[in-house]
């Protein structure tokens, strides 16, 4: 009996479209590295990394309602942590991920404290200042021995461990995939927990949340920290995959790109972040192919069309289609 009930659970789970979709996507993701060229693989790896960074932003903006245009700063912090650890201290690349996460968690939490006083547009400006200041701070003379100034730091691409028959591109792809799965599962669980409900309650109605005994200041700063952690880990991965960090990769345009990815992917949607990552990586390239001189304009037009088509991002569109389809099938039966 018990066993058959378990099987029904598995069947029920398989019948849910999200679960089927997740399995299909994961299978494709695992087979893909053996089918495509290494440059495409590199791009997909980067898209996943952007996905993690956007997920971090989503935890803050989408679930907690704190507006940030400064996440490129945390991405840069993670990337430089990884690069400095590998270049100056010759620490293995896999240790840099938790270290970058931890450092960003602390910095994010500390930045979250003064940010408590600010809301909406004002917070956006404060975080935007952070994004604008980052490249200048990285270039500044006192930090130059560590950051390499304008030149940045070149790091060496790691090979696949244990004699696995993988090229280093393939290995980095799988490493990133593993990190992505881990981070997304953690985020989904976090949002599903008591803490997650508190985070969402603060977004929806801060006064009611406070009345129910939620410590708003604490949760907001912690969410800032966790969000920075996600983006920092993405930054460290990005540094390892690109093998290079330089101040001008982390200008405020990158922060804005992450924000665009967040909205296009879907504010408050965890899987949407991956779609956002793909958008951020590929659409500017597509725009450039359409017209070199007018690349910015083409990108702008594509963005406007995308927002017309799906005002609440890809997640909103999927939700709309799913609700249409299920309603139809209910009517048929």
């Amino acid at each position, binding site marked *: 009996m018990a066993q058959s009930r378990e099987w029904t659970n598995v069947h029920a789970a398989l019948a849910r479209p999200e679960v089927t979709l997740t399995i299909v996507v994961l299978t494709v993701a695992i087979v893909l590295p053996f089918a495509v060229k290494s440059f495409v693989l590199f791009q997909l790896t980067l898209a996943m990394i952007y996905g993690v960074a956007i997920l971090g932003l989503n935890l803050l*903006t989408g679930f907690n309602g704190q507006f940030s245009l400064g996440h490129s700063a945390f991405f840069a912090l993670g990337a430089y942590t990884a690069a400095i650890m590998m270049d100056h201290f010759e620490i293995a690349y896999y240790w840099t991920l938790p270290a970058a996460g931890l450092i960003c968690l602390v910095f994010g939490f500390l930045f979250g404290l*003064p940010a408590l*006083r*600010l*809301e909406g*547009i*004002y917070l*956006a*400006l*404060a975080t*935007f*200042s*952070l994004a*604008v*200041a980052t490249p*200048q*701070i990285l*270039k*500044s*003379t*006192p930090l130059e021995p560590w950051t390499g100034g304008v030149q940045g730091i070149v790091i060496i691409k790691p090979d696949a461990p244990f004699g696995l028959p993988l090229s280093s591109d393939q290995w980095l792809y799988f490493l990133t995939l593993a990190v992505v799965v881990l981070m997304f599962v953690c985020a989904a669980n976090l949002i599903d927990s008591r803490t997650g409900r508190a985070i969402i309650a603060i977004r929806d109605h801060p*006064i009611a949340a406070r009345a129910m005994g939620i410590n708003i200041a604490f949760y907001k700063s912690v969410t800032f920290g966790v969000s920075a952690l996600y983006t920092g880990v993405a930054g460290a991965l990005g540094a390892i995959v690109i093998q290079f960090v330089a101040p001008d990769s982390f200008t405020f345009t990158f922060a*804005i790109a992450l*924000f*665009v990815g*967040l*909205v*296009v992917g879907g*504010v408050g949607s965890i899987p949407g972040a991956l779609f956002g990552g793909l958008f951020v990586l590929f659409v500017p390239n597509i725009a450039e192919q359409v017209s070199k*001189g*007018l*690349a*910015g*304009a083409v*990108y*702008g*037009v594509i*963005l*406007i069309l995308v*927002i*017309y088509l799906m*005002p*609440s*991002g890809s997640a909103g569109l999927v939700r709309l289609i799913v609700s249409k389809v299920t309603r139809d099938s209910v009517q048929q039966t």
Partner: protein
Amino acid sequence: MELFLQQVIAGLSTGGIYACMALAIVMIYQAIDQLNFAQGEMAMFSTFIAWQLLQWGLPYWVAFFLTIAISFLVGIVIERVVFKPLKSAPVLSHVVIFIALFGILNSGAGFIWDFTVKTFPNPFGTKPLFGQSVISIHDAGMIVVISILLVLLFAFFRYTRVGLAMRATAANPDSARLVGIRVGWMIALGWGMAAAIGAVAGMMIAPVVFLEPNMMLSILLYGFAGAVVGGLTSPFGAVVGGFSVGVIENLAGTFIPYVGRELKLTIALALIVAVLTVRPSGLFGRVVVTRV
């Protein structure tokens, strides 16, 4: 002391540019209740239109007012075409549209007028105002033009029916609709006015920083900073904020040793964030009270 005064005056003259931009930002914020990230690019585009008109041989002041009129119409068209269909979309989607507009205007201007730096004529002349002072006639003229603009806007919002209707629309669209205000057109009007003010700001700034598609990038940022420091609800505060950002930036670059020059932008921004943590609505801003 001499150096200090010199730097303050130099700061005031760049501050005038930021004040122009901050004013345009606050105006559109009052009309549509959103920060327009494409504001700088709209101003840049208008300035290119003015430049084109001047190239076709129109006298300066004809081109000046014609550009304001064209910008006003273009602002309304942008609202009607791009934003009206997305009225009910989430705010964050609107911000993405601003970013899209930014890209379209920036690369469009580069495509039409290319990226070479152009000089823009100066209506007031470049001689220093008195004797050897750092402040030129143009700086003074710019400040006068901004002051006139500020007074006109104040009168418009304070004493006209349309101004009142626009304020009502920004404060509470639903109630405004109920008392018979055509909310959609008020927002379009707000866009038109913001574009027109942007055009004035652009034409005042262009002789100083030269005309090219990326001219507004850093100015927009300082303008934002000035607007936020002064308080987004107060046009007067925005002008004061713009000037103080210019002065702070200049003083930080001169007097803070070692890192001052490299990090003057960073220091200015850090100061602004510090001001905001003490006074979250800016120096002159009204605290917005919402009913729950």
